[in-house]
């Protein structure tokens, strides 16, 4: 019998993340558009990216810059010079039947190497059960390399066997990709999912890619169980599927081990429909990539000052922003993390602050009210896999700022404020407008306000006395009125009346 311990064999997971640099204007080696997504098939091509005979690659300077920004975010070393290699393999989506990439086996050629990243841990309620913040850890990065994306192959019929031919579109061919290779430092699928969410966020902070674009961030996985052979899984369409494919692969490998069958080192494809991995090719087959230095691209000398120059281009990273929120804005770590973990929400927060500089109040509104709403919608399946929910609500930063201000300045009762806010979110009307509208019904009705104040003063007769020493009492009464009337009282009029009545008491 085998001697696998009860707790299960050791699990090692590594990732190869491909990030398209969608925020570039042009492709990696030619001046075709980096944004290939709006062009009719094969229109976004030129002799270079079609690999026509005699054409030469012309490396995009900004692509090198973007890639090095990613390297810095992952705390990688950036060498003083980089070079490119050819990875030779035939496939119909590859115009030259080789991919121009970087390769470190014969020399240090890649834009980044030997980095590591603290991954903050998931505080977002999106991945429910995984909220164990002890999950956080340090992930080592083996290398970061710059390379070109291939074209796309499609079929007319869904079932590939039914097709007599394929259809090829080279619009994507030559778009810049940054490949980030991690060491096998993950020990659970959940950790992988959390990590991926965080780095997608990181890419967004860096401004190098728009992760909401389909296929802009992709991920291959390698899994080994119990110190066994490494199996690579490719062809995974989304991060949710990444998690599923790892679960499947763990089970598959454990089953093999249980039956004392060797796990073969191989590449497997994730079949999304059937939710299984399928053997694609063995390691021996794929190792014949015949790498050699790309003769058409000279060694690129970055120089000693390159790193310090790129540093000046670096935007504020999530981890830095987190620190600022905690230290400068005095927001709790929990709330700050939630904000920072999604750049769009964090930016929304910052924008709101421009209208009303009250970080704690505003952050609470966003985290407790807004995000709850979004998560509700999320559960209803109204958001896409990579996009975040902010888009589905017609709410602007100024609305949030207003409501926060109303609560603080006009002492709007929270319950009422919440209702106004809900209405505001649903309709897109500003909270002030909503209040004004509510006021219109009431203005003619000073008598009922007086009645409410009288009732309050009867039930709490000590109030007029207290208000002589404590001006806050008036606000307190206003709060009671608001509560009573569910906010349908013009606070100005109410305040006026409260003062009158307390003074005359």
């Amino acid at each position, binding site marked *: 019998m085998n001697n696998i311990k009860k707790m299960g064999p050791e699990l090692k997971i590594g990732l190869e993340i491909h990030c398209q640099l969608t925020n*570039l*204007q*042009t492709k990696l080696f030619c*001046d*075709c*558009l980096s944004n290939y997504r709006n062009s*009719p*098939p*094969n*229109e976004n091509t*030129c*002799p270079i990216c*079609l690999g*026509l005979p005699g054409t030469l690659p*012309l*490396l*995009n*300077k*900004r*692509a*090198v810059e973007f890639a090095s920004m990613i390297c810095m975010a992952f705390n990688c070393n950036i060498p003083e*010079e980089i*070079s490119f290699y050819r990875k030779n393999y*035939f496939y*119909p989506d590859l115009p030259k039947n080789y991919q121009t990439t970087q390769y470190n086996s*014969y*020399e240090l050629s890649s834009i980044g190497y030997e980095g590591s990243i603290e991954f903050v841990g998931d505080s977002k309620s999106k991945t429910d059960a995984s909220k164990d913040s002890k999950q956080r850890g340090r992930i080592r990065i083996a290398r970061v390399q710059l390379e070109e994306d291939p074209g796309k*192959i*499609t079929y007319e019929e869904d079932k*590939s066997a039914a*097709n*007599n*031919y*394929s*259809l*090829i*579109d*080279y619009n994507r061919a030559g778009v810049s990709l940054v490949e980030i290779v991690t060491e096998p430092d993950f020990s659970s699928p959940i950790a992988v999912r959390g990590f991926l969410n965080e780095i997608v966020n990181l890419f967004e902070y860096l401004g190098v890619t728009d992760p909401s674009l389909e296929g802009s961030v992709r991920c291959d996985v390698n899994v080994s169980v119990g110190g066994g052979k490494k199996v690579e899984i490719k062809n995974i369409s989304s991060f949710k599927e990444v998690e599923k494919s790892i679960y499947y692969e763990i089970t598959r490998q454990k089953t093999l081990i249980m039956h004392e069958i060797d796990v073969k080192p191989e590449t497997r494809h994730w079949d999304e429909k059937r939710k299984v991995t399928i053997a694609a090719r063995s390691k021996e087959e794929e190792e*014949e990539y015949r790498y050699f*230095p790309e003769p058409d691209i*000279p*060694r*690129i*000398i*970055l*120089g000693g000052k*390159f790193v310090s120059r790129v540093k000046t281009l670096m935007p504020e990273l999530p981890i830095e922003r987190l620190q600022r929120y905690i230290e400068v804005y005095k927001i709790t770590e929990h709330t700050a993390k939630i904000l920072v973990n999604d750049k769009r929400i964090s930016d929304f927060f910052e924008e709101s602050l421009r209208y009303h500089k009250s970080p704690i109040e505003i952050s609470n509104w966003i985290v407790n009210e807004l995000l709850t709403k979004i998560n509700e919608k999320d559960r209803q399946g109204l958001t896409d896999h990579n996009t975040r929910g902010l888009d589905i609500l017609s709410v602007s930063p100024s609305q949030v700022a207003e409501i926060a201000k109303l609560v603080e300045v006009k002492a709007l009762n929270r319950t009422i404020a919440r209702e106004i806010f809900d209405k505001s979110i649903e309709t897109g009307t500003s909270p002030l407008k909503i209040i004004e509208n509510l006021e219109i019904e009431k203005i003619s009705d000073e008598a009922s306000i007086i009645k409410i104040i009288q009732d309050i003063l009867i039930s709490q007769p000590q109030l007029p006395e207290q208000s002589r020493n404590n001006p806050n009492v008036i606000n307190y009464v206003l709060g009671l009125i608001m509560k009573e009337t569910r906010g349908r009282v013009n606070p100005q009029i109410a305040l006026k009346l409260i003062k009158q009545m307390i003074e005359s008491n």
Partner: protein
Amino acid sequence: MAKGIDIIKLCNMTKLEIPEQNIPEISRKVEEVLLMFDKLDEFTTEDSTVPSIEDLKFEMAFENLRDDEPRPTVESSEGPQLKFKLKNIKDGFILGPRI
């Protein structure tokens, strides 16, 4: 020594179809040339100043790389760009084999 080269495997790798009757001749030629390549094995040097491969690689300063600017839509002095006629087009796609 370069004996026993697996020509079939090499042909698969390079996507070259070689008729069976030509295999012996091409194998002979490959082995003949590889034997000539073995001359490289005779070359040894203790000289620590031997330049590495990198010595011959051209260099280019990062600053001189191409700027990230899309090409202007109006063509230059070269006249209108000749729209390249790709083979076997179907609805704009290139017809490919089955995968």
